[in-house]
């Protein structure tokens, strides 16, 4: 019989590896109610910057609550470091459009054109 005990060691090492990778890629998710649509495209890139908009208009990036000027500096610094970064706007479905427009204006001011508006696939 072939000894199999080393297989479990390999399995657990892989498990630890994947757990560490997922910790590195940790995402600061804000509890929002996603807007929904049926036909979507994958907008994820290698480098991503997520801007969260809550229904009360509170903006946050990577777990930090920001105002418009702070948002502008974060986006500018991120794009200066990694120009290919994909900017995602993730807004609560009940958010008044004026708050989404605040983010749009910041991105327009930075001459950043391509933006991903994240929605969830409707079931």
């Amino acid at each position, binding site marked *: 019989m072939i000894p199999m005990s080393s297989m479990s060691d390999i399995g657990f090492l892989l498990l630890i590896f994947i757990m560490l990778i997922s910790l590195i890629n940790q995402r600061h998710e804000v509890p929002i109610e996603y807007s929904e649509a049926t036909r979507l495209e994958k907008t994820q890139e290698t480098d991503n910057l997520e801007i969260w908009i809550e229904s009360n208009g509170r903006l946050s990036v990577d777990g930090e609550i920001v105002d418009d000027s702070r948002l502008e500096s974060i986006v500018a610094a991120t794009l200066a470091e990694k120009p290919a970064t994909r900017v995602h706007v993730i807004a609560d479905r009940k*958010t*008044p459009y004026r708050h989404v427009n605040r983010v749009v204006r910041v991105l327009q001011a930075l001459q950043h054109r391509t933006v991903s508006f994240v929605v969830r696939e409707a079931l």
Partner: protein
Amino acid sequence: MIKLKERRKPDDPGDSGSLNDLSFLLIVFFIVIAGFNVNKGFLMDLPDASKPRIVQTADLLKCSISNSGEISLDGKATTIEALSASVLEMKRNNPNMTFLLTVDPDAEWQRVVDVIHEVRRLDVSNFSFKMGGGRS
């Protein structure tokens, strides 16, 4: 003569199959969880605020969303279904059609997503949106 069943030794190196199954199931679980973080939605080009585009009036289809979420097409109230029909007809007559969406500052984001979704579904390439109410 009584034949005794051979017992497995407790330190049998071959007796770890279930542990392998468990660890691989956990790996599959983490891979699936990682897949949940993939963003999906609409990839859009924001209009250039400093260089407004000049569009012929005949090619322009003006749509607006009010604060209550009501959709209007060229000033007349409409539904998403009727909007699709109007867009298709306009596209047939004007291949260079530009869809301009004006959104009230208080309109809910989901309503805007509904209209964007419909426009994307109908492959309207010239699409622009702005905030209405004099605050854009």
